[in-house]
C-alpha cells in the first residue's frame, strides 16, 4: 500500500473516534477499514504486532499506533489547519495531562459500570462521576478545554459520550443530572460536523453492550 491515509478501526471504539475527529478537523481524505475484532486481519496484526489493537493509522504505508500518539502525529503533520494542541509548552503539558487522565480513568470506570452489578457497580458509578466532575472543574467556564478553540482534550474525551447512554441504562442513573456542565460541553462539540459524523449512535452502542453482556455471561 503506497501513499494516502488508512484507518483500521472498529465502529464503536472511542479511541478510533478520536482519530476520525482529528482527521475530519484537518479535512484529510482517508480510507476507513472496519475491522473484525474476533477475527483480526493479517493487516492489523502486521501493522500493530505489539498490541494487536485498533485504531491503527497508516500513512504512506507506515503504521502509527495508540490513539493519542496518532492525534499528535496528525496535528504535527497537518499543522497548517485546525491546530489541536496549543503552541505554548505549558498549555501543551496541561492538555496532555488531562488527555492522559481521560485515558487512565474513563475507560476502566465506564467498563465496570456495564460489566458489574451490585456494590461493585455502585462503586464504579461513583468513581466515574467523580472523574467527570474533575473534568468539569478543569473545563471551568471555558467553551472547550484549554480555553482556546476545540482541541486535544476535547478530542480525547468527547467520543466517550456515545457510550454514556449504555452506562446510564446499565447503571440506572443520569449522567446529565450529575454533570450538567459537561453535557452542555458535549452538546457544543456535537454541533461540529467533525464530531457529529465521527461518533457512533448511542442506541447502537447500547445494543452492542447488551450483546457483549450476553457473550460474557453477565446478568
Amino acid at each position: 500500500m503506497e501513499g494516502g491515509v488508512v484507518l483500521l478501526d472498529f465502529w464503536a471504539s472511542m479511541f478510533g473516534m478520536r482519530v476520525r475527529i482529528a482527521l475530519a478537523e484537518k479535512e484529510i481524505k482517508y480510507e476507513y477499514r472496519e475491522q473484525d475484532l474476533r477475527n483480526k486481519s493479517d493487516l492489523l496484526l502486521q501493522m500493530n504486532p505489539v498490541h494487536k489493537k485498533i485504531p491503527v493509522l497508516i500513512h504512506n504505508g507506515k503504521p502509527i499506533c495508540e490513539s493519542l500518539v496518532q492525534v499528535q502525529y496528525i496535528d504535527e503533520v497537518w499543522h497548517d489547519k485546525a491546530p489541536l494542541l496549543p503552541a505554548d509548552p505549558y498549555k501543551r503539558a496541561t492538555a496532555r495531562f488531562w488527555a492522559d487522565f481521560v485515558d487512565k480513568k474513563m475507560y476502566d470506570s465506564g467498563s465496570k459500570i456495564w460489566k458489574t452489578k451490585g456494590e461493585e457497580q455502585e462503586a464504579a458509578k461513583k468513581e466515574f462521576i467523580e472523574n467527570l466532575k474533575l473534568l468539569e472543574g478543569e473545563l471551568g467556564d471555558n467553551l472547550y478545554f484549554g480555553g482556546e478553540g476545540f482541541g486535544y482534550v476535547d478530542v480525547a474525551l468527547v467520543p466517550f459520550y456515545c457510550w454514556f447512554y449504555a452506562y446510564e441504562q446499565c447503571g440506572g442513573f443520569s449522567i446529565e443530572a450529575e454533570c450538567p456542565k459537561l453535557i452542555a460541553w458535549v452538546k457544543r462539540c456535537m454541533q461540529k460536523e467533525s464530531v457529529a459524523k465521527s461518533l457512533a449512535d448511542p442506541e447502537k452502542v447500547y445494543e452492542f453492550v447488551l450483546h457483549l453482556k450476553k457473550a460474557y455471561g453477565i446478568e
Partner: protein
Amino acid sequence: MSKAAGLLILDYWVSPFCQRVKIALNEKGLQYEDRHENDLFGGKSELLLKSNPVYQKVPVFLHDGKPVCESTIIVSYIDETWSSPPLLPPCSYGRAQARFWADYIDKKVFDATGNIWRSKEVNVEAKNEFIGILKQLEEALGDKDYFNGATFGFVDIIAIPLTCWFLAVERIGGFTVAEECPKFSSWTKRCLQRESVAKALPDPEKVYEFVLMFRKMQGIE
C-alpha cells in the same frame, strides 16, 4: 550549567519517575532544586498536595511556581521549553514511534517488575512476562545504540531509571537480565556511562534494600 529561574522537583529518592525528570534536566544542562517528599510513608507537603491535587504523587516539576505532573509529560515539557539538545527525533514519524514506545514502557515495565518483587513465591509467569517485555524492547532497539538512534533521547530517558529495580527483580526472581536479554543489558550499561544518567540514579543495591524493607512491611517476606 545554565541557570533558569525557579526549577524545582518534588522528589522521592527511589522513584524512577522522578529520576526521568532529573535526567532530562541534566541533559539540558539546567540547575534545579531537588526537594525530597516523604511520599510513601505519609507526610506529603502542602506544596505537593496543592500542585498535584488529582494524583497527589511525585514527581511534580515546578517551573517558576507552575506545576507540571506525570513524568513522561514533564520530560516532553522540558524538551519543548529548552530545545537544546533535542530529546525527540526531528521527523513526525520518528516522534510518533518514540511516543509509542514511551507509552509501552509506561504501561508495562514497572508493573512487570512489581509482579516479581511483590510475590512471596518465585513467580515463573511474572518472570516470563517481564523477560517478554524486555525482548520486545530489544526488538525496538534493533541495532541502534539508543532507542533514539545514534544519540541518547526521549525513550532512553523514560526507560533507564526502571533498570535500577532490575537487581531486586533478579535476586528475588532468580535470573539475570544480562543472560536473558544481553542487548538490553548492553544498552543499560551504555546509558549508565552518561553523566546525566549516572548522577540521577540511585545505587541498585539501595533499591534492593528498599524492596526488601517494603516486602517485610507488607508481610511478603
